[in-house]
Every structure is written in structure tokens, then in C-alpha cells.
């Protein structure tokens, strides 16, 4: 009797799937779209670096050192004659790979321990939270420096160090979401039906905290891009001649008084990447935040 229903609720719009509605709302979110385009664009560049980059990022050429931007070299060349555009494009691969993997370490660690801590409570919660407090008491930079000192300076170390240093923050966020979720009636119902603790965590709570996790990861990504670039900048990350934005910035800084382009373009890419993920994160948050529902 669909007709009757329409008569009873004459103003109800035609039923549109929730997913489509959210997508539409996201497309209308200007900041989110700009972020998606920026970040998505950089991801595409990173994936297809091989095809897009006009030159070999490592090829030296002493006939064209420190050339200003020109049609042949859009972003100019550095003091070793390498094409900066090509290096920035390959740098996108290095920088984004590190940032995404580090975020993955952070959020997976955060999800596992956050779920256990928040749902199980008791001694597991006390233990995990005390460890989290100890880790949070360390300045992040000190934590990262200790890991780099132990494992040696390279991008993999930075990736692990940046990932581990964000775990406690994610644990706190996930745990608070789990605490809210755990008190809801559907969980009570599952318990009443005899579902096991880990089954409930994996099947019912995890999907409901996942959206929060995605938003926080996206928002945290900008910080991680900055942190990894920063560590490479001070020489603890990417080793020469790896084209990584932070490392390129250091090399460019040495030349800055004679040539602005070797430092400017990697800096611009770092800026665009961070602005991109932050806008994207804002968009996603607005989208999933129930308070924003109209």
C-alpha cells in the first residue's frame, strides 16, 4: 500500500539512499571538494610519477645547474642540474607513502588498543591508559628522535617512528567513542543474545567507530606529512639523493640566496598536501558528524 503512505506523509521526498545523500552533501561542501581535488591530485601524481615526471629525478647534469624556471624545466633545476619538477613529483611518492603508512600504523594501533581499552575496561583499560599517559608525557619529537637514534636515519625509520608516536592519541580518541557506543541498546541486545566480547567488538562496535577513525586519520595526516618532512629536513629522514620534499627543502635552503626555486617548490608541495588533507578532513567530519545533519 505505498500510495497510502504517500498520502499520510505528503511532504516526504522520494526516498534516496543515504549514501547518495551524503555524497551530494559532500560535493556541495566546497572546502571538502577542494581538499579532495588537491589531495587526490597529489595521490595521482604520486602513483603515476614514472609516467608524469619529465626527467629522471636523479640524473645529474652539470651543463644546467641552478637554471631558473623555464619551458624546459618548469620548476627550474638545482645545483646538481636535476629537474625540480621531476624531483617534486617523485617526492610526492616518497612523502605520501611515508605519511599514509605512518597513519596506517597509528590508526591500526589506535583501533586495536582503543577498542580493547574502551570495551573491556577493567585492568586492560587501566594498563593501556597508563601506558598511553606515559607516552603522551614524552614530547613527540623526543619519542621520534629516540626511535631514529635506535634504528638509524632513513625513511622507514621515520615511518615507524611517526606511526608509533601517534598511536596513543588515536587510542584516546577511539576509546572515548567506544565508551559512548558500548552503552547503546543494540550492544546490550547483542550481549543478551549471548554474543562474545570480541565478536561484539569486531562486528558491532568497530563499524561504528570506523567513521570517527577515518576522520581523525585524515585530520592527522597533515601533521604527519609535516612531521616527516621536518625530520627529513633536519637530516634524520630521507638520505640524499632521495627526492623527498623535506630533504629537498634543506638542499634548497643552502641555495636560497642565489636561487629561490629549489626551496620554494618542495615547500609549495608540502603546503598543498597539508592544506588538501586538512580541508578533506574537515569535509569528512562535517559529513559524518550527526550534529551537522539538517
Amino acid at each position: 500500500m505505498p500510495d497510502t503512505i504517500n498520502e499520510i506523509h505528503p511532504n516526504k521526498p522520494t526516498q534516496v539512499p543515504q549514501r547518495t545523500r551524503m555524497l551530494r552533501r559532500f560535493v556541495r561542501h566546497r572546502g571538502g571538494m577542494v581538499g579532495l581535488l588537491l589531495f587526490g591530485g597529489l595521490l595521482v601524481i604520486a602513483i603515476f610519477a614514472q609516467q608524469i615526471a619529465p626527467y629522471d629525478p636523479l640524473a645529474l647534469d652539470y651543463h644546467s645547474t641552478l637554471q631558473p624556471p623555464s619551458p624546459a624545466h618548469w620548476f627550474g633545476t638545482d645545483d646538481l642540474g636535476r629537474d625540480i619538477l621531476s624531483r617534486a613529483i617523485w617526492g610526492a611518492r616518497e612523502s605520501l607513502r611515508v605519511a599514509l603508512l605512518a597513519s596506517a600504523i597509528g590508526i591500526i594501533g589506535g583501533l586495536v588498543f582503543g577498542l580493547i581499552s574502551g570495551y573491556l575496561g577493567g585492568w586492560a583499560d587501566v594498563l593501556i591508559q597508563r601506558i598511553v599517559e606515559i607516552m603522551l608525557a614524552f614530547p613527540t619529537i623526543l619519542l621520534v628522535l629516540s626511535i631514529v637514534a635506535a634504528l638509524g636515519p632513513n625513511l622507514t625509520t621515520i615511518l615507524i617512528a611517526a606511526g608509533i608516536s601517534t598511536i596513543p592519541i588515536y587510542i584516546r580518541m577511539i576509546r572515548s567513542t567506544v565508551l559512548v557506543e558500548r552503552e547503546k541498546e543494540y550492544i546490550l541486545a547483542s550481549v543478551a543474545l549471548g554474543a562474545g566480547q570480541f565478536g561484539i567488538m569486531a562486528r558491532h562496535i568497530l563499524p561504528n567507530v570506523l567513521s570517527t577513525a577515518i576522520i581523525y586519520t585524515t585530520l592527522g595526516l597533515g601533521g604527519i606529512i609535516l612531521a616527516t618532512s621536518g625530520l627529513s629536513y633536519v637530516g634524520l629522514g630521507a638520505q640524499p639523493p632521495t627526492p623527498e620534499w623535506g630533504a629537498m627543502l634543506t638542499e634548497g635552503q643552502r641555495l636560497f640566496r642565489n636561487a629561490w626555486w629549489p626551496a620554494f617548490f618542495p615547500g609549495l608541495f608540502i603546503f598543498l598536501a597539508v592544506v588538501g588533507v586538512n580541508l578533506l578532513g574537515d569535509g569528512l567530519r562535517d559529513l559524518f558528524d550527526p550534529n551537522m545533519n539538517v
Partner: protein
Amino acid sequence: MKRIRFTALTLVILLLLTGISSAQDTWGTVVVATTLEPDTMDAHRTSGGGLLRFIGATLIAKDPQTSAYVPYLAESWSTSEDGLTWEFKLRQGVKFHDGTDFTAQDYVYTFQRWFAEDTASPSAATYSLITSTEAVDDYTLQLNLAAPFYPLLELLTQGFAQPLSQEAVETAGDTYGQQPISVGPFRFVEWVVGDRMVLERNPDYTWAPPFLHEGAPYIDQLVLRFVPDYTTILAGMETGEIDTVLGTNLNGRDVPTAEAAGFNIFTTYGRGMAPYVLMNVSQPPFDDILVRQAFNLAVDKEAIIGFMGGGAIPQHGPISLSVAGYWPGVEDIGYHYDLEQARQLMQDAGYTYNDAGMLEKNGEPLAMKMLIIPDTAPFGQILQAMYTELGVSLELEQSDLGVLFGRVVTGDYQIGVGFYDFPEADVMYTFYHSSGIGGFNISQVNDPTLDAILDRTRNEIDGDARQQAVNEAQQYIVEQAFVVPLITLEEYLPVSSRVQGAVISQDATLWLNDATIVEN
């Protein structure tokens, strides 16, 4: 401002007539910037003696123009027939900064403290052929040597070899390095660690080496600013806060900027080699002379200079042309870029090229890590590209100087980019004599033939015979390819045009005794 170029035997002294006439009415402060803050000002405990010469003085000095050894604290000297005893007649009326008189006894004390085990002086080993010192009378000092030691006079001009006052050292105890006392043209005032050291003119300095005016410096104060960041130094030069830069080479690209900011640029060639490739010859693959020769032939030195936009000359031997004792013959017998021959030598050494064009032996690729520091990173990347052409899979490993030094001293490396600064051919003894293994013989060379030649470079007292030994050492090291010489950099010493009368020697030693300030 015109750029003034030094050639091997010319020197430019900026003692302009205006400088002399305004000397008496313009006192002031000269600010010297450096990226390298000394670890201590204790002449015996420091690892770098560059700033010591401002507060101290040495037995003899080196004439900036002729490079001849001239009287400074010693008015004259003589040596015995066998070259084992040296006698120095000391200047009278010299006072330490604390007012006590300087006598031969002070030098006896100084040498005793220098060589004492608990002083743990890093520079003492270089002077180890001096077995004892005696004060014949108050103003006659005698040095006794274990063997004839040709480089003695050169080594006695180094800032390390200045006299210390026993009273001052013992009063200050462990803090002596923070409040040094000597006899030089400037007195220590204060040291703000991480920022600056202030020195003032020493009115009791009524003497000087013959190439300077006799008497205390004209300027009141000398401020040494410690600025770790090179670009900050440049900015300081542009704003006029910095008058000159020591121990930190100005980048050739920044010379026009400095000239535009009113600096006179003195160009010299570095007193050593920077950079060069050092190899651990005690281990594969560099225990094989063919591999070492191939690594020499695979380097295109002209290309390296091309990357730098000039400002350097190629080197072919273990010491560069700016080092006293250089043998030009290395230019003929040295290795000149020839990639094909280098590839052939690698194959003669038992390596084969795989399909990717890379070298391997018994199925193992030839892979290695090259040690670099941030300063040598650009050269490391150029060398990496050149050795990749040869077929070597070479990775760069960057660390700071302390870490790098620890690794090369213990031989815990295969290949690296090194640099050194030393004015005399005796540096070959330091770097390649087997007695230096575990110390400065970082290439881990242990070759009795070379040891015998190097012993002669120290023990021959006859100048010609000594030079002959020095030439042989250079020839042998090149033939054995114990090192991959690269280039020697031009060094640019900027001096602000408000400072007149600064005297700069061809080895870039700066004397400020005659300097005056001319406000524009």
C-alpha cells in the same frame, strides 16, 4: 669592490695610506664570525687551533708574503749538526696577560704539560719527536729530538705551540680552557658559550713579528661570534654586524653578494684537499690495487668543478698544490678520467658486468655505502652518479662529523668523502704511516715500503733530500692509488671594507694587529 686574487707568491696587504693616518684616531671593534665554536681555549686540549693565535704567540711565525720563518717569541734559533738539538734565543720583556714575566721556564712547563699523559692532548702526537725541553738560561730554550724532524719549524708556528703560564694554569685548574692566559696581542675577556667570545687589545704587547707594526693592536676589541648557520652569517655580513669570517669558507656563489655588501674578498687555495675519496684499503674490495685504480679513473674531476661553477682545481696526488712540499709530477702520473679503462680494470680484478650493466663477483653485486656529512652531501651525490656509471651500486650514508670520524678511525667503513686542512707535506706521515692506524691513518694503509719513505720525510735534515723523500711518497701513494684525489677549493676570505690593514697570508691566516676601523 674589486676582487683580489692571490697567486702562489703574491700577497695583498690592505695597509692603505688612509689606514695609517686614521690609525690613531679610530679605535673600535672587529667582529669575526665562525660556524665552528672551539671546544676549549686550552691550547693543549683543543682539537682546532684556529682562534688560539689571537691570544697567544709562537716561537716563530711565517711571513705572509714570502712564507719564510721569521722571529716571533724567539729572536733567533740554531740547530746542531745532527739535527737533534734546537736552541731558541727568546725575546726579553714579554709579559703574560696576568702580568708575570715570560721566560724559557714557561716553555719547559708548557711542553711538559702538553705531553703529560693526563693532559690527553689530541695534538701532542704530532709533536711526539720532541723528547725533552730545557731552559739553558732564562732566555734560552733547548728542544731535544728523538730523530731529525724536518717539519719542526712549520709545526712550531701553529697556535697549539703557544706558551702557557704555569701559575695561570694551576690557579684556574679545570676551568683554564674557559679563561685562557697567554702572551699574544689580544687578552681574553669573556666567553658566552654558543654566542661569542670577547677579546681586548693587550697593552703589554710591545713587540710583534717583523711583518707587523711593533706594539699592541690598534683596535680595542675583537669579538668572535659563533653562528652555527652559514646563511645567518651571510645575513650578518649584509647588515654590517660581521666584519670577517674565519674557519668557514664563503660559497663561491655568495661572493658577489659579499662584494655588494662592501667586502673585499681574498681568494686563496685551501691548505689541503676538500673533498677527496677515502677508501679502507685493508678490506675488500679496496685491498685490490686494480679496484682502487678503477675508482680513480672513473671520477671526472672537471665535471665536479663544472657542478660547482668553477672555484676549484683538480688534484692528482695525496697533497694539494697549496700544501708545502707539493710535487707537480703527480699531474703526469696521476689518474685522468677514463671510464673505459676503469671498466676494464674492474674486469681484470675479477668482476663481471651483468645484464643491468652492474658489477658482480660470484653472483654477488658490488655494493657499498659511502659515508658523507651534510657539507659533503652534494659531492657524495655526484660521486654516486659517477660510480654508478662504473657499475657500482653505491648508497650514501649521511651522519655528523663526530660519527663519521669515529667510524673511519676504527676502519668501520668501506668508502667515504673526506677533507683535510694542513699546510705541510708531513700530513702524509699522519695519514699513511702504519703507526697511525687507529688514529689518523683512516685509510688503514699498512705498507712497509711506504713507511720507510715516510720515515725519511721526517728524518732527512737536508732540504733537498727531504723534498726528494716527499716526492717519492707522493709518487708511491699515487701508484698504489691509496686515495682518490678530487679537487682543491678556492677559499674566499671576506673582510669588510671598514676594516683596513688586515694582513692575510697565502694560507689564509688573518693578522689583525695592524687593523684599523674606517667608518664610511
